[in-house]
């Protein structure tokens, strides 16, 4: 459909359109997999989509884009995520 360009502010969604926002982080969430009960509250609440949900509902943290807000640690009912200051 698009036959010509116009200069204005357009951006198309892609991972990391604004660069690796994980560099903004001051506190780093650390996941203790032994405590995790796969409730997925962290995955639901993460505002950045930086919690990666695996096939078996276990989770991993995408440190390239996690800004360290700590919401996952606050929402985790079994305290499987702790926030530690970045070095």
């Amino acid at each position: 459909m698009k036959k010509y360009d116009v200069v204005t502010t357009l951006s198309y969604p892609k991972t990391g359109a604004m660069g690796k926002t994980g560099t903004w982080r001051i506190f780093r969430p650390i996941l203790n997999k032994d405590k995790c009960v796969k409730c997925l509250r962290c995955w639901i609440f993460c505002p950045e989509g930086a919690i990666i949900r695996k096939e078996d509902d276990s989770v991993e943290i995408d440190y390239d884009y996690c800004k360290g807000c700590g919401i996952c640690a606050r929402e985790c009912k079994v305290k499987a995520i702790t926030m530690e200051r970045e070095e």
Partner: protein
Amino acid sequence: MKVVVDTGNHIAALAAKLAKPDVVAAYPITPQTTIVEKIAEYVAKGEFSGDYICVESEHSAMSACIGASAAGARTFTATSAHGLLLMHEMLHWAALARLPIVMVNVNRAIGPGWTIWSDQNDSMAQRDTGWIQIYCSSNQEIFDSIIQAFKLAEHKDVQLPVMVCYDGFILSHTSMPVKVPEQKEIDDFLPKREPAWVLDPENPVTHGNIIMPKDYPSIRKAMQDAQENAKKLIPEIAKEWKERFGTYHGDLIEKYRCEDADYIILSYAALGAESKVAIDMLRKEGKKVGLARLRTFRPFPSEDILSLAENADLIVIDRSISIGFEGPLFTEVKSCLYEKSDARVYGFIAGLGGKDVRYTDIGKIVDRVIERKQDGVLWYDMEGGK
């Protein structure tokens, strides 16, 4: 082709209908009201195929137009005076987003004191928004300009919103005969819009996201380039219209009896039409005076004005005032002549708040210049026509 006798506002509504906008979002305000009433009537009678959105303010009207235009719709609205001022933020938004919205602004003076009569302070205050501004001086020009405005706005080299302006009551509520082409002929002249980008859930895009300082100047420069492109396209579109439908009102400016003129009046909108009558009167008196009626204020026809100033002094009549300085057209005319012309430029303020300016008044303005009674900017209104 048929001839319709109707008011400027009803002619504007008819032009808007024939341009087949997908969306009209508007809020009524005197003296624009009868445009939106007429469009509502078209909707009620099933003669209008687009969506008509009733909104709660002009800020919302322009916001709805922006959303619709961003989704790819051909979009029309209309307003006046305080309505236009309330839209101001979104006018910038529409232009920076490069959305080809067409809007009628029925010029009305600003209150307080409460006024519904014409002057151009409302649209002149939108000068820097990026909108193309066209000023009309007859109902035929209103009709032709609105349909041409869609073609101009939607041109791939322009992609800017266009404001079509005309004086409240003087044109908006005055009936004149207008040649109206058939729908099929309008459709041939104005094909469907082909947007450069659209908001589409199937192909997601973010518009208006953050832009870093290093990139921002380029979007402003692109708007400036688009206005320059419009300067070339306005005459081309007017020529195509003339060939198809026979009516023509000038390119960026309409020149009248300028060839051998010692003095040329520069004005716009209804004062431009009144000046034409004044020119005939002055010519009969043996005074070599011509008229250049500006049809566009943005883009500004600086090259045309420079060429007019080669052999004539210029008399600028503004129905508008930039408080603290002078008439806006007076300022711009002098600016484009700077270091390029020795022509003298005389500035007059006339007709604010709808104060009547007759062709005899324009004759008196010209006489003042010829008799060298003019010094600086003259508030003709305050003279009481003396």
